[in-house]
């Protein structure tokens, strides 16, 4: 029995498929591919396949992750190749690696996520601030020690400090804002809340943004590394 991590992208029509449905899509894809996936014991056996972090419906995901346990040995090429021969349009498996000895499960491993979005143009001028301006604003936010927002909890509306869950903010060459936020079962910051908060602090319109999830990270001795790391990431 070998555990594998796979990396996949979810885009196009597949964006409109929710998390549980995506699980079923994968389960049937695995069966059509004839892959020797392992099953759980017990009354209602299910295939040993699970996701790193659920994706909200409507969100595109560039590098997303799941783990799958195979009953017999396969190669990475076989795994990705056979899956891709049977995935629906919009779902592409882009990489696979065996789980490392002693490595936590992919959900437990996930510590952070990168999300991107484009700043909406101002309603009146239709223009956006320039690169320097945005970069300055993002640095200013990072410089803040505390960012308090009202958060809805079971016991009502509470003020919470979300600054500790914002690990990084940067601007991409094509003018996209990328947020690295806490993600996973231990800590999780809702990206929509984060984006909303950022835009308000930058005094920008906050409606109509489309969030994309770019990557999921594990925390390796204080450094964030993608769950499947093709090359060494610079700190």
């Amino acid at each position, binding site marked *: 029995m070998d555990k594998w991590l796979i990396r996949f992208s979810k885009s*196009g*029509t*597949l964006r*409109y*498929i*929710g998390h*549980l*449905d995506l699980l*079923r*899509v994968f*389960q*049937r*894809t*695995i*069966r*059509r*591919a004839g892959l020797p996936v392992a*099953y759980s014991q017990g009354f*209602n*056996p299910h295939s040993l396949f699970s996701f790193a972090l659920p994706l909200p*419906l*409507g969100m595109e995901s560039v590098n997303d992750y799941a783990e799958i346990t195979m009953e017999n040995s396969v190669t990475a090429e076989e795994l990705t190749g056979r899956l891709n021969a*049977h995935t*629906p*349009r*919009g779902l592409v498996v882009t990489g696979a690696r065996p789980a490392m000895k002693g490595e936590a499960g992919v959900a437990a491993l996930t510590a952070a996520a990168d999300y991107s979005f484009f700043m909406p143009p101002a309603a009146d001028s239709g223009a956006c601030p320039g690169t320097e301006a945005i970069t300055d604003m993002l640095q200013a936010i990072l410089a803040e020690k505390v960012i308090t927002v009202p958060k809805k909890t079971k016991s009502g509306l509470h003020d919470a400090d979300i600054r500790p869950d914002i690990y990084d903010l940067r601007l991409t060459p094509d003018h996209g804002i990328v947020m690295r936020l806490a993600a996973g079962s231990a800590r999780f910051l809702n990206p929509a809340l984060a984006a909303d908060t950022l835009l308000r602090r930058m005094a920008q319109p906050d409606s109509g943004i*489309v969030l994309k999830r770019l990557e999921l990270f594990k925390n390796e001795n204080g450094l964030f590394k993608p769950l499947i790391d093709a090359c060494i990431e610079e700190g």
Partner: protein
Amino acid sequence: MRVTDEILLKVAKPGRYVGGEINTVTKDPAVVETRFAFCFPDVYEVGMSHLGLQLLYFFLNRRPEVYCERVFMPWPDMGALMRENDLPLFALETGDPIKQFDFIGFTLQYEMSYTNVLAMLALAGLPLRAEERGEDAPLVCAGGPCACNPEPLAPFIDFFYIGDGEAALDDIMDAYRTHKAQGGAKRAFLEKIASLPGVYVPAFYEAAYDEEGALVSFTPCHPAAPAVVKRAIVPSLEETFFPDQMIVPLIETVHDRATLEIFRGCIRGCRFCQAGFIYRPVRERSPETLLAQAGTLVDRTGHEEISLVSLSSCDYSAFDVLADGLATQLTPRRVNISLPSLRVDAVSASALEKLTSVRKSSLTFAPEAGSQRLRDVINKNLTEDEILEGCSRAFEAGFDRVKLYFMTGLPTETDDDLMAVARLAESIVDQYYRLPREQRRRPVSITASASCFIPKPFTPFQWAAQDTAETFMEKQQLIKKQIQKKQITYRYHDARTAVIEGVLARGDRRLADVLENVYRLGAAFDSWTEHFHYGLWEQAFAEAGVDPLAYTGERPLEALLPWDFIDMGVSKDFLRREWTRAHQALTTPHCREACAGCGLSSYMGQPCDAGTAAHKAKPQ
């Protein structure tokens, strides 16, 4: 033009509207000659669970010049956004508006979907009435079981197709191909196909009524139209097309499984059951064919469950061979075998064993009536002992969930019959607890579901009176009070929906005005309890000047029935004989015990073997 992301993010389950599923057919619309929009008048999840859609989709798409795409009724939230944004009803494969297609075809599976048929025509941007649609509008057709009484929808449809899709659809497509190449009006095409088996063009017939509103004549008013429309039947299923793949939805649907149609028709002759009669004669597929199909279906879909579909799966003459073969083939692949429509008396212990080795679904039995007397009236040849014995065997095999179907409002029913429903459900619970303790892992769960009897055309009960909504509700409560045991969940269907269904099922053309009225008042998704509003129907009837009670009462034997002009193969004489026998509580043996002369053998022009030939013909 596809629906925008903005709209998709506003609606529930946007996956309903995006297509992109596994095994859908992609063709270049610019290259095909005939575009066919297959419309299922209910929401995506319901329509995608329907085997007929899968069958006809691949049947039509196997023709290179035809592109058949799917259309479902948008959920109210999407419907509203489509109207607000001027987004016309589109097909899933290409996103193209269906008003540009050559054909719009509806499948009529249940009468309560009729308002959705109108809603879809309107959403497509087409006039509802056939006579108001111009030459550039698609040909609107409809088929499916309700087409055996098409009259309430007649003024909205260009032609109905009555019978097996595989029988004459190719001929219709061939005729259209020629017609389109030559050019010509729609009417000319309708004239050409009017003589094909199964085709009914409403515009070519006239109905006349007396002062009380009763139908007095129904005759062709066009030379091309036959006086009697004969149902199209394929003589054998073995040679008939069967898809070796199914579209696999991306979102959860009602039935997420591969489906095998094992035979059509039914030998039992239960007197309330329309399907059993309108799908006769029984035609089976051989177990070899089915096993091959099962394997391919599972390969191509990746489904974890396969369902055997027929009106009475245990009557399949090679059931044990099939069950054995499926278990051998599919159990190692972890595919669960699901059996709807199981008759308790025909389940053998060994068959149950084989089918339950992967995962246990619940077993379904349909006693329909609580007392033996009433079961004899409806010709459900099942004794209480057989029911208990069958449940016993199922329990021993490890089943602990049983579904029971009953009907209230059956002809000659008394309060004693109703109380017998509760007693029967309770004795099944008792039966479970007779098992030794070690064999009872969980408490038993019995679901007793009571629907309301609706007299249907082409059954011996087509003359019967239907109970009023008030009477149904009293009866449902009577049973409820009688059921004491906590292991039994009692469910019952909405009586008012049943009455409307009863009106539409035995209705005539005058109901078209009612349907148009109720649609304009906002009715849609009438088969959904949360969307059915009886008040709208009451108003619609009043505005049309039509009394619903005129349709639900007992019909005189000599009356002209709105569906009499259609020959489904079952003779009216046979139905009358069975109606008389019902009143005497006389049962009629099933087809393999004795031929009751239902009329199908003369209709088919050959002796009827009650479906046993398919596997016998193959060398063993």
